[in-house]
C-alpha cells in the first residue's frame, strides 16, 4: 500500500498504533518498575516523580502495569481478529462462492451465533471454559468470526457473477485461480477496514471480560483487571482506574481512526473503478 497519504485519520491512528507496538515490544526498557513488584510502603499513592501514574493498593507502579498491559491487549486484539478473519474468509468463501447446501449450512450456523447477544455469548463461553488468556481469546473468536464470514460472503456474492469472473472461467480458469487472482483482491479492502476496527473492539471486549474476572488473572497486568482492582478505591485513589481507562480509550480510538481512514482512502478509488 502507498505510504504517502494525506488522510489525517490514518496518520493519527497509525502513529498511535506504532507507538503502542513500540511500547509493547520494549516494555521492559520503557517501564520504570517491575509491574508485579509490590512496594507495600507506597500503597495507593497519587502520581509522583517516582510513580508517574501513582501506585495501586499493593504499591505496584501503575505506569509500568499500563505499559505491560499493552502487550496483553495488542496480543488479544491481533490474535482474536486474525483468527476470526481466517475462519471468516474460509467459511465465507465456501459459502458465497460455492453456494448450495454448504452456503445454507454455514449461514444457519452464523444465524445461530448471531441469535445470542455477543457479550452474553462471550461471557457464557468464558465462564464455561474457565478464566485465562487463551480461553478468553477463544470466547472472543467465537463471537467475532460471524461478522467476517458474512462480509466475505456478501462481497463474494456481489462479485462472483460479474463478467470479468465469468470471462476468466471462459478462458479455462479453475476455481482456485479465480478465487485468488480475481475475487480475493477485489473483496479484501472492506474486510481489512472492518478487521482494523475489529481489533479495537476485541481489545475493549477483552478488557470487559477481564474486568468481570473471566480474562487474564492477576497478577498479570491487564487493563480490564486493573480497572476492576481500582474499583474499590475509586474515591480515595481515582488514578488507579483513570490511567488504564485512558489506555483502553486511546487504543480503541486509534484503531477506529485507522479503520475510518482506511475506509475513506479505499472508497474513492473503489468508486472510480466501478462506475455507474
Amino acid at each position, binding site marked *: 500500500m502507498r505510504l504517502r497519504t494525506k488522510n489525517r485519520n490514518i496518520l493519527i491512528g497509525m502513529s498511535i498504533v506504532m507507538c503502542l507496538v513500540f511500547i509493547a515490544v520494549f516494555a521492559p526498557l520503557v517501564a520504570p518498575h517491575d509491574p508485579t513488584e509490590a512496594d507495600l510502603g507506597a500503597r495507593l499513592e497519587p502520581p509522583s516523580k517516582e510513580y508517574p501514574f501513582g501506585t495501586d493498593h499493593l504499591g505496584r507502579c501503575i505506569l509500568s502495569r499500563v505499559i505491560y498491559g499493552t502487550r496483553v491487549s495488542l496480543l488479544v486484539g491481533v490474535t482474536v481478529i486474525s483468527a476470526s478473519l481466517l475462519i471468516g474468509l474460509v467459511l465465507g468463501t465456501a459459502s458465497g462462492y460455492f453456494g448450495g447446501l454448504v452456503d445454507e449450512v454455514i449461514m444457519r450456523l452464523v444465524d445461530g451465533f448471531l441469535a445470542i447477544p455477543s457479550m452474553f455469548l462471550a461471557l457464557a463461553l468464558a465462564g464455561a471454559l474457565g478464566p485465562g488468556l487463551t480461553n478468553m481469546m477463544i470466547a472472543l473468536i467465537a463471537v467475532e468470526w460471524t461478522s467476517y464470514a458474512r462480509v466475505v460472503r456478501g462481497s463474494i456474492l456481489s462479485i462472483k457473477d460479474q*463478467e470479468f469472473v*465469468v470471462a476468466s*472461467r*471462459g*478462458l*479455462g480458469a479453475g476455481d482456485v485461480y479465480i478465487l485468488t487472482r*480475481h475475487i480475493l483482491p477485489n473483496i479484501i479492502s472492506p474486510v481489512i477496514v472492518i478487521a482494523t476496527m475489529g481489533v479495537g473492539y476485541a481489545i475493549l471486549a477483552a478488557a470487559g471480560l477481564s474486568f468481570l474476572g473471566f480474562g487474564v488473572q492477576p497478577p498479570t497486568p491487564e487493563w480490564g483487571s486493573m480497572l476492576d482492582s481500582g474499583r474499590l478505591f475509586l474515591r480515595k485513589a481515582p488514578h488507579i482506574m483513570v490511567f488504564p481507562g485512558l489506555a483502553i480509550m486511546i487504543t480503541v480510538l486509534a484503531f477506529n481512526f485507522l479503520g475510518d481512514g482506511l475506509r475513506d482512502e479505499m472508497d474513492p478509488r473503489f468508486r472510480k473503478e*466501478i462506475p455507474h
Partner: protein
Amino acid sequence: MLEVHRINKRFSSGGIFKKNYITAVDDVSFSINRGETLGLVGESGCGKTTVGKLVLRLIEPTSGKIIFDGVDVTKLRKKELRKLRPRMQMIFQDPDSSLDPRMKIGDSIAEPFRLRGGLSRRVVGERVSDLVETVGLSPEHVNRYPYQMSGGQNQRVVLARALAANPDFVVADEPTSGLDVSVQAQLLNLMNGVKSDLALTIMFITHDLEVVRYMSDRVAVMYGGKILEVGDTEYLFDHAEHPYTRELLAQQSAEDYYVPEDDVNNGDGGCVFCSRCPFAEEVCKNKEPVMVNIGRDHQVLCHRV
C-alpha cells in the same frame, strides 16, 4: 463448426417450498458453419444472451445438445471442458465489468497465456504487445487500469484478451451497444478485420439490425426464447416471412421495441408470438408451430407459411 440441437434453459426462482420457473430458452436449434458469422437478433429479454452463454456452457442447459467441432459440449466433464474453453470465447456487452478493476490492462490480456502456462515472462510480454497493436491500442495502455480507459478502449482490451486465447469461435454479446456510434463503427471494422485474418467463426448477438446486417452472413431472429426465423442476411432483409421479423424490420431496431414478459405466450400450446401477432388465427393459439424450410437455407416458425 457448431451445431445446437433443441437446447432449453429454465431458470428457477423462489425458495425450498415453492419454485417458479422461467423458460429463457425454449427448444432452440441452429448451426453455424466454419468461418461464418451468425447474427442473433431480438429485443431485450428474448433470451439471446442466454443462448450465447449456453453455447459456451458458461451456464448449464436444462436439456439439449451442443456440438462444437464434433464434440458434444454438454457431455464434457469439468476438466475436459476447461481444456476446450480457450477455443470458444465470449465478448460481453459491458466492457467495464468484463475487466478486473484491480488488474492492469496488460495483465488482463496476458491472462490466457498465464492459464495455458509454459511461456516465459518475456514471450508473454511480446505476445501482449502484439495483441495490443492488433486491436489498435498503444503500448502505454498496458500499464493502465480499466477505470483509466474509455469504454471503447476497454472493449478493445476485451477483444485482445479473447484473441490471446487463440479461439476458433467467438460469441460477441452486443459488444458495441454501450459505445458511441463512431466508436461502434471502428470496433465493428476491427472485429471484421480480425475475423478474416484469423478465420474466426462468430456468433454476433445484438438488437441492432444495422449492425447485424453489416456483420453477419446469416441471421436468426429470436423472440420469447424461440428462434422464429433463420436465413441468409441479405435475403432475409428483403424476404422476411415471419410477422415478427417484418415488424422488426419496419422498426429498424429491436431496442425501442421492448414488451413486458406477460405478452409472451409461454403457456402450453400455441405460438409464442400469437398474443402480439396481427395475423393470429385460432390455430396459432392452440397449436405450436414447427420450423418449416422454405428454401435457400431459410426457415420460419409460423403456421401461416
